[in-house]
Structures are given as structure tokens and as C-alpha cells.
């Protein structure tokens, strides 16, 4: 079977890196494709790289700047600050993906896995914190790697919140599920792919998800923040976190084997092996 997902020539593969690929308007390229294309592309490439470098530097500076502004204006309202910080933390993952100029097939695979994760969340919404989302994100990460895992989790959070209510918590959930996916991808890259390891990972991240989301809840809605209030929030969320962890394990036990088998088959069939 010919591998259609690969670019035809090596030249084409380097040329894919055009930042504004969708928007660029160039008219006089047809005349001498080889020299002119590569010329334009290198100029664009450097332009893209400097832009990305600027963004990267901006991100590094942004966190202390935000903290300083918050300390100066300081009235104990950390909700907005926390949301901004979380957004800044997730941006590099998206930028990396953006810069790589992924193939259409990669995009579609992540979209399908994110859709399934989001649908699972919406379907099980009536049962609080009982959802297959984390499990599906973990499976996607194991099958397609850490980056795909992060994107699956983050996009699933946005997409499912379109049904369950978008809000300032969306970036936090994107971060949490993204990180669950990223971690699972790293874990399976390290060689531990057994259902047992994934279940343990799922159980732990089930709790971790709730604990990170508790931080958001406390930072945004509890004032003044005292140790007693923090403890109360963590104690009262225990059963919800436990349900989340348990459901994740349950769905990993149910889904991991058959789904990974199917996904691997798809990978072989369409030549998606990295």
C-alpha cells in the first residue's frame, strides 16, 4: 500500500512549514517553482521563527508581570490571575503543534479522540464526576503519543464545555486533561503500557484532576483563604474525586484493550506509525 500521508518529496516536507499557510497570497510562484519557492519559504520560515521566538520570550516575561500587577492592585481576587496563568502555561503546547504543521490525518485522529472523550463526558454528565473522559484521553495518548494526548484532553475539555457550560474553569480543565494525556503519553513512551500500569495511573490522575480543580475553586471563590477552608474544600471533594478515579479505572479496564487494538490496527492500515 502506498503511503499517501507522507509528502511526495523531501523538499515538500520542509516547505510545509509556512506559518500563515492558509492565508498566504503569492502570485508569481509558478514561474520557477524550485528556486523561488525555497527562497520565499526560507524568508517566511525565519519570519515565523522570529515571531515564535518573540511569543516564547513574551510568555516567559508574562508570568512575573502578571504576578507583579496582581500584587500591586492586590485585593485578594486571584481568580482571573489564575486563569491567565493557566492559559499561559498551555499556550506552548499549542504553539509547538502549530509550528510542526501537522498532516490532515494527525488532525483528524486527534479530533476523533477528542470528540469521543467529549461525548463520553456529555453522555455521563447526569452522574457527577463519573465519566470516561480521562480514560479515553489516556488511551489516545498511549496510542498516539504525548502531544496527541495533550491535545485530545485539552480539545475535549473545550468541546464538552460547549454543552455543559463554558466558563473561566475551561482553561483549568484543558490544562488538567491535557496534562493527564501528556503524562500518559510519556508513560507509554517509557515502555509501561500494561493495563495495570494505566489503571494505576488513571486512579492517581483521577484524584489529581480533582485536586488541581480544587485549587481553582479555592482561589476563585473562597475568601479569605485559610488552611481550614482549604482543608474543608479537599475533604468535601473526596468522594467526587474518588468517583472520578474509580470511573477512570473502570473505563480503562473496559476500553484499553479493545480500543488500543483497534487504534493500532488503524495505525498499521493507514501507515501512521511514527
Amino acid at each position, binding site marked *: 500500500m502506498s503511503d499517501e500521508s507522507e509528502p511526495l518529496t523531501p523538499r515538500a516536507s520542509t516547505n510545509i512549514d509556512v506559518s*500563515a499557510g492558509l492565508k498566504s497570497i503569492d502570485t508569481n510562484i509558478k514561474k520557477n517553482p524550485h528556486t523561488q519557492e525555497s527562497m520565499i519559504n526560507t524568508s517566511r520560515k525565519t519570519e515565523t521563527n522570529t515571531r515564535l521566538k518573540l511569543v516564547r520570550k513574551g510568555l516567559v516575561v508574562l508570568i512575573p508581570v502578571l504576578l507583579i500587577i496582581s500584587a500591586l492592585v492586590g485585593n485578594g481576587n486571584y481568580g482571573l490571575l489564575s*486563569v491567565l496563568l493557566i492559559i499561559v502555561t498551555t499556550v506552548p503546547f499549542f504553539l509547538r*503543534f502549530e509550528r510542526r504543521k501537522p498532516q*490532515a490525518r494527525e488532525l483528524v485522529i486527534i479530533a476523533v479522540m477528542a470528540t*469521543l472523550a467529549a461525548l463520553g463526558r456529555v453522555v455521563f454528565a447526569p452522574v457527577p464526576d463519573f465519566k470516561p473522559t480521562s480514560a479515553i484521553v489516556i488511551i489516545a495518548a498511549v496510542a498516539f503519543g504525548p502531544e496527541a494526548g495533550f491535545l485530545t484532553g485539552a480539545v475535549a475539555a473545550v468541546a464538552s464545555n460547549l454543552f455543559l457550560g463554558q466558563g473561566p474553569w475551561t482553561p483549568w480543565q484543558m490544562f488538567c486533561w491535557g496534562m493527564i494525556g501528556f503524562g500518559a503519553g510519556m508513560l507509554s513512551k517509557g515502555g509501561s503500557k500494561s493495563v495495570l500500569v494505566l489503571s494505576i495511573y488513571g486512579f492517581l490522575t483521577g484524584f489529581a484532576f480533582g485536586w488541581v480543580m480544587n485549587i481553582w475553586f479555592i482561589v476563585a471563590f473562597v475568601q*479569605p483563604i485559610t488552611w481550614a477552608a482549604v482543608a474543608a474544600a479537599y475533604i468535601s471533594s473526596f468522594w467526587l474525586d474518588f468517583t472520578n478515579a474509580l470511573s477512570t479505572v473502570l473505563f480503562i479496564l473496559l476500553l484499553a484493550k479493545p480500543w488500543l487494538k483497534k487504534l493500532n490496527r488503524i495505525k498499521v492500515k*493507514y501507515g501512521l506509525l511514527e
Partner: protein
Amino acid sequence: MVRAFSAIHPAVSFTFFAFIIIFTILFQHPVFVGISLSGALFLSWLLSGGQGVKSGVKLYFPMFLLIALANPLFNHRGKTVLFYLRDNPVTLEAVTYGLCMAASLVAVALWFSCYSKVMTSDKFLYLFAGFAPTVALLITMTLRMIPNLKVQLKAVASAQQAIGLDARTGNLVQRLRKSMRITSILLSWAMEDGMETADSMKARGYGVKNRTTFSLFKFDARDGVILAVVLGLAGICLTGYFLGYGVMRFYPVLAPLKISGLALCLYTAFGAYAFLPVLIEFRENLKWHFCK
């Protein structure tokens, strides 16, 4: 059905929503929260009618209760004790703060729901295609796939039912097994269908250089005026916030409401901002009514 506000340029409406959401989170003040909440309710009524507001209330009321109740239960600061719950004082200040926070949260959620009604995925794609085309496309594709897969899920389930594998019958293990079968079929279908989509995208030149995007959005004079109004009012509100007017002191005792001239100006400016979409809409309706 909103026409005028949905017709303005995506960049303008995006700026409007970004600021109103930031303000609603930032201003911990009963007056501002009240204005924002009523603006959001009014707009969502215009956008989706009474039914939409009703379902919104149903969706967000539990959240409102949770936040409003959680604060006085976790926090016992404040001087005015209302009553004791298991030896813990429940104070007026904590209750007020909880109510204010809950209202602000619901307002934010309502603004977000209005946002998703006004900023349809084509507008979203248009705005972010210049900045992050791949991620924007990824999100848009996912949003499209959800209803698609829902339909397919129904089709698969009824096909399974037709061959005697109804997932709703049998004992728990049997039901689980049949449900697993359905999800498994769905996964295969989604992947195969996705591959076809990807090949089709590739065949139509996805990722090839020198492609342009087409959009119907044009930034005209009216958009410029609205953007200027949005930025002007937002500037006033931000200045007021940095002057300390945006927040009210809740602890240890509720601070009295500020009603100086400057404060009143600020309330008016924020009111004008929050009701801007509604005003645009009414202006358009009046124009339509009288020019007919």
C-alpha cells in the same frame, strides 16, 4: 433572534465578550455583578428566547447554590453573626460574599453561552486562522464531529437492536458487553470516516502553500464606531477599577455602597457597556420599525 449584534465584525464582538467576561470576574461588587448578570440575562433572552433563559437557569442554578452555600460554610469571618451551625458562626458578610461570587460566576457562564451563540465556528475560525490556523481547525473539526458521531451512535445502536443485540435488554454484564460492542463499532467508524475526511482534505490541497481563505466579514464604518465605543467604555471601567471603585470590602463588615459622582458615572459606564448588545439590537429594531 438577534440580527444586528450578530452581524457586526467578529473582531468587535470578540473584544466585547473578552472585556465583559474579564470585568465580571474582576469586579467583586454587588452593583457591577448585578448589572452584568442582568445584561447577560437580557442578551440571552434576545438570543434564544424565554426557553433558552429557562434552560440556562436550570443549568446554572445548582452551580449558583453550590458557590453561594459553600462560602458561608467554609468561611466564618465577618462581624455580623446570623446564626450558628454546629458551633460555627454563619455571618452576613460571608453570605453576601458567597451570593455575590455565585452571581458573578453565573453571569460569566451566561456571557460565555451568549458568546458561543454569537461567535459561530466560522467566525472563530476566521479570527484565529491568522494566529493559530491548525489549532483553530482542530477545535472546529471536533465541534463538527460531535453531532456527527451522535447521529452515528444512534444508527449503530438501532442496527445492533435490529440484529437482536439491544443494549437496553439483558442483565448488567450482557448490557455492558453490548454497549462495549457499540462503542467499539463507533470508534472504528469514526476513525475510518476521519481518514476519508483527511484524504479528502489532502486532495483539496490542505497544507499546500499559497492558499487563501475566503470570508464574508468586512470591517466597515459601523464596526469602527462600535469598536471605539467598546474600547472607550472598557477604558473607563478599567480606570475605575484601578482607582479602587470596582471592588467592595466585604470583611470584617460590609462597606457601605459608594454613591459619589464618580462612582455613579462608573456604574452608568458599566451599565452602558453590559447593555451595549441590547442597545444595538433595539436601535436596529426601531430603525426597522420606523423606516418600513
